[in-house]
Structure formats: structure tokens, C-alpha cells
């Protein structure tokens, strides 16, 4: 990943695109809920360019039953994605919506919470454990200082943290099966959603470089440096 020299963005021309790891965990969790008999159907959803179809095929190879792509070539910001998902929630009426907690490019960490607000649903973000029973989900969340458990009424929005599960490896037979599963492609206009930008990127620049310092010979040299040069101890 390199910042473009003209400062307009980052060069991702040769970067391999794949499913965001947090989203992969979300798909895995949904499939496990189906395998446990808690969920009856798993729908994988993505909003973005046509290539997202490949990502959705991966989700179906993990075990999602069908997929919906809201295809859009323009940049989609979190609020726009949340509005698209809200429209799909209205349409599909899921009992539980699972999302990754954040993207690993823009690191926004917004979409799930925005969806929950727009759909007027409870939320449990940064989940490390999800248990569904009797119309509620007990969700253990990773918070500053430890863990907390919330009980949310379904339907609800849950966003996944790293240690919720370890996604399975997709097998070739499942990849083949995924090719035959249903994928619907919609446009934002089909859902009546305005996907305008709320944030404009004026410039992308390199962060200040932190140079390597010195190697010290031994522990006493290190202590001396910290005391007399850095003055931090």
C-alpha cells in the first residue's frame, strides 16, 4: 500500500481484494447459527462494485444460502451503506444482522451502529460471543477494560470482533456449490436510497516517518539512555 504521489489517494491497483476479515467472521457466525438450528436462512449482502460478487460467492462457499449485491460504482460511505442495508432489512426482515465491526482500509467502525439507529434496532457491537434464544441474543462485547454482556431483543444488529470465531477454510466442493446459489443484484435506486457523499477527501498524504534509532549494546546502556538521553524513567 502506497500513498499516490499526487496526494489524491492510495494506490491499490495491484492490491488483492478480499473479504474484510471482520465480515468473514460475521458470515461464519451466521452460518454456525444456522448449523445450530437457530437460524433458518443466511443471506450474504454486499454494497459496492461488480467485483463484490466474488466476495459474496466466498460467503456462500462458507455457507450462506443466497446473496444480494447492491451494485454501485461510486464511493459508498458508511451512512450510505447503512441506508442501503436498512432498505434490505425492511425487505428481508432478518431476525439478526451481523456485520464486521470495522473495515481495515478506512477503519471507520460506523456502519453497524448506523444501521441499528436507522432501523431502530438494538445493537451489540464488538462481539466476542453470541448466544441466541427465545427472541433475544446474549452478546458478550469487548469493551475498554474487559468484557461486558448485553441482552438485546431480536431483531438486532451485532458487529463482530476478532475473537468471535475462527472462520472455516472454504472447500472446493463448497466453492462449486456456491456458484449455483442465487445472487440478486440491485441498484441503490431500486431501494430508493440516495448514496451521496457526506465527507470529501481533500488530500491523502504520507504520515511523518519515524526513523530507526540506535541499537544499544546491553541492558545497562539501555537504562543509561532512558535516564539521561530520553529522560523517560
Amino acid at each position, binding site marked *: *500500500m502506497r*500513498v499516490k504521489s499526487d496526494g489524491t489517494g*492510495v494506490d491499490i491497483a495491484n492490491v488483492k481484494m478480499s473479504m474484510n476479515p471482520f465480515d468473514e467472521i460475521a458470515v461464519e457466525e451466521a452460518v454456525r447459527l444456522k448449523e445450530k438450528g437457530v437460524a433458518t436462512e443466511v443471506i450474504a449482502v454486499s454494497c459496492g462494485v461488480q467485483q463484490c460478487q466474488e466476495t459474496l460467492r466466498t460467503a456462500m462457499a462458507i455457507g450462506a444460502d443466497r446473496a444480494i449485491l447492491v451494485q454501485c460504482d461510486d464511493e459508498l*460511505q*458508511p*451512512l450510505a451503506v*447503512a441506508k442501503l442495508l436498512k432498505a434490505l432489512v425492511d425487505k428481508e426482515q432478518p431476525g439478526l444482522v451481523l456485520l464486521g465491526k470495522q473495515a*481495515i*482500509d478506512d*477503519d471507520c*467502525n*460506523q*456502519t*453497524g*451502529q*448506523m444501521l441499528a*439507529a436507522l432501523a431502530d434496532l*438494538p*445493537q*451489540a*457491537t464488538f462481539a*466476542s460471543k453470541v448466544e441466541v434464544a427465545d427472541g433475544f441474543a446474549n452478546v458478550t*462485547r*469487548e*469493551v*475498554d*477494560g*474487559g*468484557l*461486558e*454482556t*448485553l*441482552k438485546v*431483543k431480536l431483531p438486532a444488529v451485532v458487529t463482530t470482533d*476478532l*475473537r468471535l470465531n475462527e472462520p472455516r477454510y472454504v472447500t472446493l466442493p463448497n466453492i462449486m456449490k456456491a456458484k449455483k446459489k442465487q445472487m440478486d443484484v440491485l441498484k441503490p435506486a431500486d431501494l430508493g436510497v440516495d448514496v451521496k*457523499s*457526506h*465527507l*470529501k*477527501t*481533500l*488530500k*491523502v498524504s*504520507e*504520515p511523518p516517518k519515524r526513523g*530507526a*534509532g*540506535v*541499537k*544499544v549494546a*546491553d*541492558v*545497562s546502556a*539501555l*537504562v543509561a539512555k*532512558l535516564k539521561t538521553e*530520553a529522560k*523517560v*524513567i
Partner: protein
Amino acid sequence: MAEINALVIAEHDNAGVRPATLNTVTAAKQLGGAVTVLIAGSGAAGAAKAAAAIDGVAKVLHADADIFAHGLAENVAAQVLALASGYSHFLFAATASGKNISPRVAAKLDVGQISDITKVISPDTFERPIYAGNAIATVQSLDALKVITVRTTGFDPAPATGGSATVETVQSVGDSGKASFVGAEIAKNDRPELTSAKIIVSGGRALGSSDKFNEVLTPLADKLGAALGASRAAVDAGYAPNDWQVGQTGKIVAPQLYVAIGISGAIQHLAGMKDSKVIVAINKDEEAPIFSVADYGLVQDLFTAVPELVKSL
């Protein structure tokens, strides 16, 4: 531009405000308008008083009700929205709590959120790191109202004393009824909070086990009065609890001194600590990427170096 009027949604433990609130107030002050702090809590008069004493705070709004006892996003967001009229900027610390609540507020106001700002350029333009801090984006909000999360390491804490704001009690909203608190496992110890600690001792996979992690690092952290942190590899291996993880998807820290022990220095980890003032790396692999950001590198086996370091402090 319309008048600037900032509302900082405080992070607090009812008795006082958490350090992240002080950094968020600094960001709010840089917008150039008045700064109001909201304390939504349960029995939170102490926190309201503490907020009123923060330098630069003009007013404190205090909403007190049982429904705020556990900071449920549905309830706190509803409280913010109930008070939203008249404010141009809504600022949250980019902590687990702030990140949980702020997007709800933004979505309900139909505005985009500006996440994790590290610099205020103007009241509508900010810098924020992207791609694990490998690039800095300058972004301009196109909305009239701005909902912002503040990366605390980007702003100095506002002085906790010197202010004399008025405290206004406001009516609390009702319970959303959609979520309830079941319980929490918050480790209690005397160490400073990871995100506000002056010194952090952080361990990686080279520690080899949970027992060794504690046995080797605890004496050093005790000696330095430091918080303990860990790399993602160490947390994944079960050597340290999840909330100790420093990195892109864990906590972002910038202490005066960061001591990385047995940490190789994956980009993911560097994203969480490279703004530390002084970085020390102890690793027996002299090619480890951590040395490329360390001010002082010691190429030595950590199992001999760390006990020796403890003795010489």
C-alpha cells in the same frame, strides 16, 4: 459559517471523568466555539463536577437516570439527540464506548461521521489516519452538523482543573427497552489504563505462554508503574486478555515510553503504537521490523534481558 457550538459526550465512571474526555475537550476547544460537556450517568454528580472543572468547558449538562448506568448506546444516543438542538459539533472519544454510540447519533441526524480525527484543520476539515496509519487523509465534512470521534493520542489532555463551568441538570430520556445489561468482567488492578498510561510494557508471542508473559513482564511493569499491553499474536495465542491488544484493531496508544518485548512489529501492531514518544524494543531477532521504529533497540533474548532490566531499575 454558522456559529460553532461543540457538545462533548463525556466518558466517565459516574465519580469522575475518564482521561479520554480531556483529550476530546482539547479537540473541541480547537474548533473555536463554546464547549459544553454532557454527562449522562447514574449518580454521576461527581463526574459532572469534574467535568465543570476542566479548563475551557463553558457548561456541563447533567442527565441522571438508572438507564445510563451501563452506558447503553441506545439510551445515551437518544439523550444526545434530545439535546442536539443548538449544537454544531458532537464529539466523542474514539474509545470502545464512544465508537459504539456516535454512529447512532450521526445516522439519526442524517450526517456522515468523521472517525478518529487526529487534527483539527478548520471547523469542517480534519485529518484522520487510514490504512492502519500508513496514510493520513484530510477530509472535509459536507454536512451542517458534524459528528466526530477523537483519537485521543492526537490531542493533549485539557487541564482537569481551572475551569468553572455551570452545571445544568437536564431531563433524562426514557429507556429504549431494546437492550439490557447482563454483566461485565472488568479486570480490576492498580495499573494505569492502557490508553492513558505514561509507560506501557507490551509483550509478544515470543513470551511463549500466559505464565511466562506474566512472570517476565509483571515485575517490569510494577517497577515502571506501567500498563501492560500485548501484540495481537500474543492475545490470539491466549497469553494476554483481549483488551490488552495494541494495534489497528485493538487500542491505539501513545505513551511517553513504550517497551516492546518479544514483539516482531507487524504493521497492524505499529499502527497502534508508533506515535509513542520513546519506543524501546527488546528482541533477539535483529531483523525484526519493530527495530525500524524503535528509538532504542536491544538485540538480546528477552528472558535474560528483562530480568536484568528489572534489577537495574
